[in-house]
């Protein structure tokens, strides 16, 4: 009545459907978690502010970053990508986002940390607008699931200001 091919086809279709349903359910459960991450960032030392030969300003700073992102982890979380960006406005650009540091957190145990580090990526402006510039430091986190929808959030810390003169 039913050939081997028909049976194999039915089994394959059914199991793939079930797999897809389970994957989307796993992704859906992420909606019920209400994470409460905590983070604090301080500029522990301002190293220097200079004008490059091509006219762009570059700054260097040392950061104290402590964060507890353990609540972001659910059973469907593969990793959390966390990065710190300096964000500021200049006459030329409505928004400048410069990533200064980032880290891949692969497990819940590693999600609570405190480090002191100088900026990993160069803090360079498009132009020479960094002197006396107000900026904020924003910690962003992007949660990568084992399967399904990715989500992201951030925490902004305001009230930072670059020095008035090159040094």
């Amino acid at each position: 009545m039913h050939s081997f091919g028909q049976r194999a086809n039915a089994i394959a279709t059914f199991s793939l459907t079930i797999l897809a349903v389970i994957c989307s359910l796993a992704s859906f459960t992420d909606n019920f978690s209400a994470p409460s991450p905590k983070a604090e960032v301080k500029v522990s030392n301002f190293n220097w502010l200079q004008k490059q030969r091509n006219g762009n300003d570059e700054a260097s700073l040392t950061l104290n970053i402590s964060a507890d992102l353990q609540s972001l982890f659910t059973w469907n979380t593969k990793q959390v990508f966390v990065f710190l960006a300096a964000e500021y406005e200049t006459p030329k650009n409505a928004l400048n986002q410069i990533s200064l540091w980032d880290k891949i957190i692969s497990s819940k145990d590693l999600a609570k940390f405190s480090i002191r580090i100088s900026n990993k990526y160069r803090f360079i402006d498009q132009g020479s607008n960094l002197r006396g510039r107000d900026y904020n430091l924003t910690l962003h986190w992007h949660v990568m699931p084992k399967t399904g929808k990715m989500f992201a959030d951030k925490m902004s810390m305001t009230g930072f200001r670059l020095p008035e003169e090159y040094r």
Partner: protein
Amino acid sequence: MEKAGLPEPITKRRRMGWIRENVDSIRSLQKRQVLTQAVSLGMIVTSALIIWKGLMCVTGSESPVVVVLSGSMEPGFKRGDILFLHMSKDPIRAGEIVVFNIDGREIPIVHRVIKVHERQDTGEVDVLTKGDNNFGDDRLLYAHGQLWLQQHHIMGRAVGFLPYVGWVTIIMTEKPIIKYLLIGVLGLLVITSKE
């Protein structure tokens, strides 16, 4: 003799008629079957096309699903994972994973945005990307002398993720024999299957 000889032509005629009828029915049946199979094959192809084009409309991206080919975003995305793209009007922001095309490069790249400069007057963006697993940023991958990506380079941003499924495509592009074999077997199945 006459009586005995009479039945013969009738049975002959009958037999001839029976065969003709049967042949005719087989002929028409085959025609019908071939037609149905052609139609069902067409349905499969067109529904696949409809799903693909529909996804293009919904997501606003010219390729709504991409397969990760390199390990530059590990451990987040591995080779063979599938990404779902979305192209909304929202401006690009740091941290987002975008798929972009470089002039003179055939294969699009999936990397994370680490720097954004958005113009005050025009709202145009300059974007710098980097692979999570790479040591340096992507300026070496860009076209010669190119420092930033602009909006038109970007095909979409990754919003969802499905592991392993892309291996099917990778295997089929790298071993075309398997592709032709698969198409041949499937085609044969469609043609020979009754109903």
